[in-house]
């Protein structure tokens, strides 16, 4: 039997014996894991069949065709980042212990990377991990953590050696979010809502068996995680006139009494820019699929973030005095990543984060300049110094 037929057979057996429309979600997803179709490229016994990653589509078609929910939507950090990282870098039977409940979504995961003092400069992070017998003792604060309030486990990047160069002194762990000393608080945003959390760690003990990769090798392990993050994001809509610009056109259509010729030209200019980026996204996908990606794929984030802001700024100008009203600043729905779905005024406020989250526009322009256009790097104040000697603040 060839690999594709094996995947197909395994997936069919799952939906026959654990009909996703009838059994609880966790049972269905657990069965997917046991049958090797949770992530087909993983080894047998760890949720996979040891076949090519491309064959996941064969399994997904059958599983989702039968009404199965894509677990990525429920446990994005777990499925997108934690599973591949734990598989690749976990010691002993750690992967066997952790992957099944991750796959079934019994355990939600989160990622503890960013800190108040380490945003763009992630490798400068200060949360400390000190070895104590068979354990590590962790102290510090993390920020902008999605799902921390619901997560059972976290991917944690911490500083194990402040005397080493900053990229060399980091170690990567799996942390139990129910361990003593872990405190999660919602982080309220300027919109009034809280999509994210802050996580405080005070003398949290992590067994050394939960270390991923070698001591001091955390940056390299983190790159595995971030590479997976990059490949799990993307695929923006290719439909004309959706997203922020769709909101603006909708508003224009709904409120003829607010129209002026000047605003009409302004909106036409924004629509044209949005269309140019939509076509550029399409072109990038086309060239990626033909195996010759060009520079066009690198600009999407920086453009769409700034365009979102410009479009909602237009909406506010269009609305005039109405723009100064607001729906409700009451904190509700903690942790729901749906802040952008409020009224225009809330979407306008939410858009301020677009040029910061997922790489600031300043850092992204450096990346485009250096990695895409081949320009030289800037002078750095932190090169060749141990982390503890680098100015911080």
């Amino acid at each position: 039997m060839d690999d594709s037929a094996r995947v197909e057979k395994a997936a069919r057996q799952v939906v026959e014996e654990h009909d996703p429309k009838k059994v609880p979600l966790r049972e269905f997803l657990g069965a997917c894991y046991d049958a090797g179709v949770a992530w087909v490229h993983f080894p047998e016994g760890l949720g996979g069949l040891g076949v090519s990653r491309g064959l996941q589509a064969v399994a997904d078609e059958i599983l989702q065709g039968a009404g199965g929910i894509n677990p990525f939507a429920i446990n994005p950090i777990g499925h997108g980042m934690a599973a591949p990282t734990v598989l690749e870098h976990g010691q002993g039977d750690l992967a066997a212990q952790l992957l099944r409940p991750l796959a079934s979504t019994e355990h939600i995961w989160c990622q503890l990377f960013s800190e108040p003092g380490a945003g763009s400069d992630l490798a400068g992070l200060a949360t400390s991990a000190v070895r104590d017998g068979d354990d590590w003792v962790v102290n510090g604060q993390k920020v902008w953590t999605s799902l921390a309030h619901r997560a059972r486990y976290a991917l944690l990047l911490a500083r194990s050696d402040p005397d080493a160069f900053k990229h060399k002194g980091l170690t990567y762990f799996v942390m139990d979010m129910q361990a003593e000393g872990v405190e999660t608080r919602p982080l309220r945003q300027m919109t009034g809502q809280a999509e994210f959390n802050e996580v405080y760690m005070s003398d949290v003990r992590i067994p050394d068996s939960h270390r991923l990769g070698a001591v001091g090798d955390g940056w390299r392990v983190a790159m595995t995680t971030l590479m997976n993050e990059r490949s799990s994001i993307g695929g923006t809509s290719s439909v004309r006139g959706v997203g922020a610009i769709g909101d603006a056109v909708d508003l224009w259509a709904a409120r003829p009494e607010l129209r002026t010729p000047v605003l009409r030209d302004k909106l036409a200019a924004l629509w044209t820019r949005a269309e140019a980026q939509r076509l550029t996204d399409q072109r990038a996908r086309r060239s990626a699929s033909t195996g010759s990606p060009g520079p066009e794929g690198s600009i999407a984030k920086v453009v769409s973030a700034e365009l979102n802001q410009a479009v909602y700024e237009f909406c506010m100008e269009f609305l005039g005095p109405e723009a100064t009203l607001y729906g409700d600043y009451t904190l509700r729905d903690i942790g729901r990543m749906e802040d952008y779905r409020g009224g225009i005024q809330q979407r306008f406020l939410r858009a301020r984060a677009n040029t910061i989250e997922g790489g600031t526009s300043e850092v992204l322009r450096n990346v485009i300049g250096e990695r895409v256009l081949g320009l030289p790097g800037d002078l750095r104040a932190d090169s060749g110094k141990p982390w503890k000697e680098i100015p911080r603040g």
Partner: protein
Amino acid sequence: MADTAVEEAPSIEFVFTSEQKDLRKAVRELLAARSDEATVRTLMESDPGHDPQLWARLGGELGVLGLAVPEELGGVGGTLVDQAVVAEEFGAALLPGPVLGTVGLAIPALVALGSGAGPETAALLEALVAGTRTAALAVPDFGAAPSVTSTGDTLNGTLSQVVDGGADVLIVAATGPDGLGLYATEGGERSPLSTLDQTRRQARVVLDGAPARLLAAGDTAASAIAHALRVGGVLLAAEQVGGAQKLLDMTLAYANTRLQFGRKIGSFQAVKHRLADMLVLVEHARSTAYHAAWALQDGTDDPDLAVSVAQATCSENYQRVAADTIQLHGGIGFTWEHATHLYFKRAVTDAALLGSAAAHRERIAALVLDPAEPTGRATVANGVHMTDQG
């Protein structure tokens, strides 16, 4: 059977065939050898402003002046995307000559008239494609009424600016006894104009009873004009992309070699970020120009919308890239000896031709905004609690 299957293989938007890549390479190599900057500078300060021998070679030996002319009209039956590839290279090299008048406008206008236009028109088209004769098109933009009048076999009126107006043949829209007509004339008093961009010539044309031949009248003439303006818009956009990419390459090379404060200037974030923005401008221009070419070729989008998006984007972006090129080159970028000003002037000129960016935005607004119907997706908070939850 096999041949038919190959010919009918659908084109994939944004994916160039190996033949198109070879075409690009051939044109680029010829222009590098025969139309380098020194040659362009010599030609732009002499008459007729281009090298007729090179023009004939582009038409004859390379056969790249009428690639989209169908076989039944004596062409090679290529595609608009083929011609756009060539226009892009012409733009990158600032090729002097009647690129817009002949390749961009006159040839598409004659193609639109089809095989029923008679032997004289067929012979003219053949000569234009071969590069042995040149032509320009004098029509008002966006369906306005022409200022020229016709008695049927003569033309009267003054055309204050005709791009490539020194060409052998002028194809002129005029109001005749039976309404709109498209006429060909070799006459008229042509006065060369001093132009901002010396590589793209213009002339003032006084038609005082100039003998003319009616090519088409009424709806046939109107649709030929509309077709020519669309194709011209696509090819002008492709030319703008070629020029903008050339400037980005030049500026990158400069930022990677020029030293100030002991560093390559490209290491400064102020310079690096402007270059990143230039990349965005070039890539947006490229996406819209290519989309318009494929959309017209394959009928996959509203052609007027696709062309206006391309023209609005490319006109603005080429000018901004050209301005940034001067800025990042510093003082040398403002000198006569440096190539930056040649491209800057072309960018400004291109932006004004076949409709400004503002004129195309006007058309986009008419096509997209004016007919938009509310969907109720965008909610507006009115200050009374809990009304804004989408």
